[in-house]
């Protein structure tokens, strides 16, 4: 198989800059709060009904309010880029269930393992990142090139 780069959609500069914003947010959270900026962990801990103390809820809630309101803040300065979502209702439901269950079982997602874990040189997060990228590649290949469902 040969890799063919999509030069038209490739955006190295904005992606690098956006990534640095994400890294800055992760750095702020660990330096000033001592917490990992893993979205699945923050959300999962917020909706977890047992054990979690009230004080734990506040920082999680605040971080997520900031995250969810980012679209609103962005469009005060520039038009919001479009999100192109091709998945059908059934696919969205199955994907959501898999992402929710899988990130809790694997203790993290693209942010917790992929950004925070890798920047801490965590072997555990490296294994997790390789695992979710691998299955992401396989599932995309199966659906787009074998079953040809887009």
């Amino acid at each position, binding site marked *: *198989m040969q890799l063919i*780069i999509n030069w038209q959609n*490739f*955006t190295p500069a904005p*992606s690098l*800059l*956006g*990534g640095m*914003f*994400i*890294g800055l947010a*992760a*750095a702020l959270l*660990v330096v*000033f*709060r*001592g917490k990992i900026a893993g*979205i699945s962990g923050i*959300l999962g801990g917020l*909706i977890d009904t047992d054990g979690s103390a009230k004080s734990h809820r506040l920082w999680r809630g*605040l*971080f*997520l309010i*900031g995250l*969810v309101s*980012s679209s609103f*803040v962005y469009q005060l300065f520039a038009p919001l880029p*479009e999100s*192109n*979502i091709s998945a059908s209702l059934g696919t*969205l439901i*199955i*994907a*959501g*269930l*898999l*992402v*929710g*269950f*899988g990130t*809790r*079982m*694997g203790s*993290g*997602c693209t*942010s917790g393992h*992929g950004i925070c874990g*890798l*920047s*801490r*040189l*965590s072997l*555990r997060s490296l*294994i997790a*990142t390789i695992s979710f990228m*691998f299955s*992401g590649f396989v599932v*995309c290949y199966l*659906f*787009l090139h074998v079953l040809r469902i887009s």
Partner: protein
Amino acid sequence: MKNIITLLAGLIFGLGLIISGMTNPAKVIGFLDIAGLWDPSLMFVMLGGISVAFVGFKFVQNKSQTIFDEAIHLPGTTHISKELVIGSLLFGAGWGLAGFCPGPALVAMGAGYKEAVIFVMTMMVGMYIHDHLFKACKK
């Protein structure tokens, strides 16, 4: 003060996802579809994120408390379990299906996409199933 920083961190994280293009599932799938026309942008998001976060984690490496006297809790980095690998494989499968992972889905939900609302709701159901039904069954 620490609560304002927390809110700002969430906001900066979300702005980063929007600027980087990751709130667009079509772009994420463009990265995961290595057999099609491949868009390597996601690698640059990770590169930017890791290089800046690295400085933050280096700063707290030998500290046990923040300047606000809160304990710094960081998970272990070496324990590899069956759950880590199977859970991550399941997550990746869902990620490849819809092109959404938790952060971008929450940002797209904030932008008003109903597909993202559906995804986030079922994602929380998936989390609940794991934390309450699956883990309870295993005990």
